[in-house]
C-alpha cells in the first residue's frame, strides 16, 4: 500500500520533512527511480503508527538536492548510496563519502542509470546476458 504521496519541490522539501518529524514520524528510507533521460524521481518514506507517508520530489538530472541528514541522521547512508549509484549531488551531508561507498575513485559511470547508456549499447548488453554456459 503506497499510502499518501505528497509532491514537494527542491525549496520546501526540508521544511516539510522537518514538520513531519515534529509530528512524530519515523524515517524509513528514500527511494530513487529514473523517469526518463533527464529526470529523476526521489521518494521519501516516513512512517507513523504503521501508516506510511511519502513525499515525491522530481528533479532534473544534475540538480543539487539539499540533504535531510541534519534533520534525520540516519538518512546519510541512503543519500550516500544514491550519490554513488545515480550521481545525484546532495548538499549538506553530515558524513560524506564522496562517491567512494560502493565505487572506486576512477569509476565515472553511474551504475543504476539505464537511460544514460545509449540504446545501441543497451541492446548489446541484453543480448549478451547469460544464456547458458560458463
Amino acid at each position: 500500500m503506497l499510502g499518501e504521496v505528497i509532491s514537494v519541490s527542491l525549496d520546501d522539501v526540508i521544511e516539510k520533512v522537518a514538520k513531519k518529524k515534529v509530528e512524530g514520524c519515523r524515517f524509513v528510507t528514500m527511494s530513487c527511480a529514473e523517469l526518463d533521460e533527464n529526470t529523476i524521481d526521489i521518494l521519501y518514506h516516513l512512517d507513523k503508527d504503521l501508516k506510511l507517508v511519502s513525499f515525491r520530489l522530481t528533479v532534473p538530472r544534475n540538480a543539487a538536492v539539499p540533504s535531510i541528514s541534519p534533520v534525520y541522521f540516519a538518512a546519510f547512508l541512503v543519500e550516500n548510496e544514491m550519490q554513488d549509484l545515480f550521481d545525484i549531488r546532495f548538499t549538506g551531508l553530515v558524513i560524506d563519502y564522496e562517491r567512494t561507498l560502493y565505487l572506486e575513485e576512477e569509476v565515472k559511470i553511474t551504475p543504476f542509470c539505464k537511460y544514460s547508456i545509449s540504446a545501441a549499447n543497451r541492446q548489446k548488453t541484453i543480448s549478451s546476458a547469460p544464456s547458458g554456459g560458463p
Partner: protein
Amino acid sequence: MFKMTPNVLKNLLSPKATRRYPHEVRPPFENVRGELCNDIENCTFCSVCAVKCPSQCITVDKKAATWTCDPFACVFCGICVDVCQAKCLHQKHGYRIPVLGREIIFMQGKAGPKKGNDLNREKSSCWSKNG
C-alpha cells in the same frame, strides 16, 4: 567444587550427539531438489524450460533436437520441472558430487515428432556416474 562432575560423567557415558558420517548416512528426504536430469526420449524440445529458467542455464535447439544444461549455473530451484509440458524433467534426491572439471550436460534426442529412442549422451573425460 564438584558441581561439574555429574555433568562430565553424564557426557562421558551418553551416546554421541553427531552422526558417524561417512559410516552412517542419513537417507535423503523425498522432496529434496537435487540434480536435474531429463528423459530425452520423451522430450518434445518445446523450450519452455529454457524460457522460464531464472539463471538461464538451459539451451534447447528444436531443429537439431538437443538439450543443453550447465549444471554449474543451475540453482536447483525446480521451476523447469514444474513447467515442463512433457513431464520429462525431474530432479534426483541427492546433490551432485564434486567433480574435478567444469562440464556441460549435452543430450541429443531424435528430431521430428516425439518418441526418439536413441539416447546419445556425450561424456567428457571427468564426468563420473552418480546416483
